[in-house]
């Protein structure tokens, strides 16, 4: 056995040990090859609809970071990351999600100049091995998303979108939601039957595929948040306890950024002209000709950033002045990246490190 092979074996054992240690910890969310799973606990009885029930509160949560929407103005008034605790349970018929986050100040109702607290769950309409995830911000043309939108006034809506500005109300898919505000914290439970017939529905069939991408967003009414003024998570993966696993899909979801040099990436952002259009913390100019990248690593998978570098027009973020439009087709103002492999990896590594830190 040569030295390199020995190192590989050692690393393999280390990872196995680490994974075992994580599983045995009471933290239900665990990372594997860079992807965080949100476990969906099998429940023999029907999961409770009461957000304050101990059957929820005693379940260890997965902690999901949410970041202010900064890609397209108007942007969230918040700065820096916050967290949403996510718990999930299912039985043969229904899925229940429990979200918990600390609010600013309670805002229950909408009125002239007043907005209500809200939370949304976003699902890709199509997912599985070989399918690219929709753009995190409401999907993109050809890659629609389904949404469950709860507001503090008690309303819940079934929505669908295929990119910014395309959000459209759908016939209810049967989702119910209930929120309770206590001591500065919102706890909201969403419940829906696993199967929901009709178009533009979140499709959940853990017996066929037990790994389901999902994303979350929260709005603070007191901070005048509504629509794009929100905090959002990156795509997460629900892992149904008794669901069918798909190793290839798990691997696809787990693609991490290539190991590059973030410091070099930061320098290259200026040298390659990225800083001419994109705002990010190390850029003193703060231009607004392309999406703000302050939270790019927090909300995007590396695969998306990789694609954006290679084919900037594949998903065009429709901020004002970010693109050209000809014959109804949008073309990004950004030229495809033409540097070396190493340079690209350095930039990707730097971008993935951007999570709102100064």
């Amino acid at each position, binding site marked *: 056995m040569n030295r390199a092979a020995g190192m590989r074996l050692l690393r393999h054992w280390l990872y196995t040990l680490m994974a075992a240690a994580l599983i045995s910890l009471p933290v239900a969310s665990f990372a594997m090859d860079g992807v965080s799973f949100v476990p969906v606990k099998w429940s023999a009885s029907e999961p409770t609809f009461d957000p304050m029930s101990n059957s929820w509160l005693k379940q260890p949560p997965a902690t999901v970071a949410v970041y202010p929407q900064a890609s397209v103005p*108007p942007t969230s008034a918040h700065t820096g990351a916050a967290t949403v605790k996510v718990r999930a349970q299912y039985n043969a018929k229904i899925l229940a999600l429990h979200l918990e986050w600390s609010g600013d100040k309670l805002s229950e109702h*909408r*009125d*002239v*100049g007043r*907005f209500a607290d809200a939370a949304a769950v976003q699902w890709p309409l199509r997912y599985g091995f070989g399918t690219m995830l929709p753009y995190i911000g409401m999907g993109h043309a050809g890659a629609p998303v389904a949404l469950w939108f709860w507001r503090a006034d008690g309303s819940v809506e079934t929505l669908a979108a295929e990119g*910014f*500005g395309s*959000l459209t109300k759908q016939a209810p898919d049967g989702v119910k939601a209930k929120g309770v505000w206590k001591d500065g914290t919102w706890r909201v439970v969403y419940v829906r039957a696993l199967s929901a017939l009709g178009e533009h529905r979140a499709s959940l069939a853990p017996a066929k595929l037990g790994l389901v991408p999902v994303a979350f967003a929260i709005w603070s009414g007191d901070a005048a948040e*509504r*629509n*794009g003024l929100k905090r959002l998570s990156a795509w997460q993966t629900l892992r149904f306890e008794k669901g069918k696993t798909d190793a290839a899909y798990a691997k696809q979801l787990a693609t991490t950024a290539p190991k590059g040099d973030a410091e070099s990436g930061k320098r290259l952002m200026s040298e390659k002209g990225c800083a001419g259009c994109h705002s990010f913390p190390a850029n003193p100019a703060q231009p607004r000709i392309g999406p703000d990248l302050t939270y790019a690593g927090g909300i995007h998978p590396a695969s998306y950033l990789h694609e954006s570098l290679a084919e900037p027009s594949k998903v065009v973020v429709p901020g*004002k002045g970010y693109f050209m439009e000809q014959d109804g087709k949008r073309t990004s103002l950004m030229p495809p990246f033409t540097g070396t492999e190493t340079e690209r990896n350095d930039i990707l590594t730097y971008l993935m490190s951007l999570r709102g830190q100064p």
Partner: protein
Amino acid sequence: MSKRQLAMVMDLNKCIGCQTCTSACKTQWTNRNGREYMYWNNVETHPGNGYPRKWQEAGGGFDESGNLKPGRIPDLHQDYGAAFDMNYDVALNPLGKKVSGELPHLAPVRAPDYAPNWDEDQGAGEYPNSYYFYLPRICNHCTNPACLAACPRKAIYKREEDGIVLIDQERCRGYQHCVAACPYKKVYFNPLFKRSEKCIFCFPRIEQGLPPACAHQCVGRIRFVGYLDDAEGPVQKLVEKWKVALPLHAELGTQPNVYYVPPLSPYQFDTEGKLTNERRIPDAFLISLFGPRVPEVLKTLESEREKRRRGEPSELMDLLIAYRHADMFKLDAAYYQKPADPAVPSKAAAKDDTVVKRRRVIPIVAAESLEERLEHREIAAGNGGGGVT
């Protein structure tokens, strides 16, 4: 840009501030269902705070490079002055309630902070040179609407046929960016239906060849309505030919389509009580509202007025005097009639119907009031109150 543009001209020399336009609009569109506080048409005193309070300082519109300027959503009580709820139940001693002692005065339950016309007729200046004038305001149905630009959902659109700016009630999700972005603060959030609403230029009337209710009811006959491209219409004559009608705050970049004939005013007295050459309403004040062409317009108005005084003909004065509705309103019902469908297979026609889905823009009140009237058919027929015998 739309194919044609409807526009309105208001002659401020003739507005008497009677609010008949306001009432016409309110009874037509905004007297219930979350619209109580809204005045799609209002008449305010200037100099003054206007409605909503200090709307000119609330931001919105565009900067010089065409970017939206930040704007503020007015406060329901402080700025709009929500409709007062009165203490009818205690003050009016309702039947069936035994009340002893003196009844309280009829008064608003909540002490009002503001209301439309809170500062009516206050104006500015010192006696005997004090001054004010009335400024009636509706949505400007701008060629470059800031509300439209601010809507992330493309719920706001300009009608292709006549440039009327409307909010698609199916698309609107009540984000209120339009309310903040409009520099005239003429978009309103309906707190009952949780969607934004605004003046619709009475388009169902327009399509019948009738002017908007506010213009039709105006007792001062100050309003002229027509298409900007119609050389025979009053609007083009006043705006393009005579050049006496000016947009309000054109500097905000929205290209408004409501134009104003600025008000002439008497000359000021000096300390000796003699007339000076200075007008009571300072030109600078009018320029701040209607732009740099104000002095030129006032000159034209004055010289045409002089002509008429001398008994000479003046097309401009005849037009502004507004002898006949037919001269004030030049509309075209036929323009809105869809050309007769050529014979098409019924299947294709049905398919077209689903594609060209008519957008819902008429406030829900219209449909509801119709339903209500039908529900109370007996009352509507004059048989109300009797019960079934």
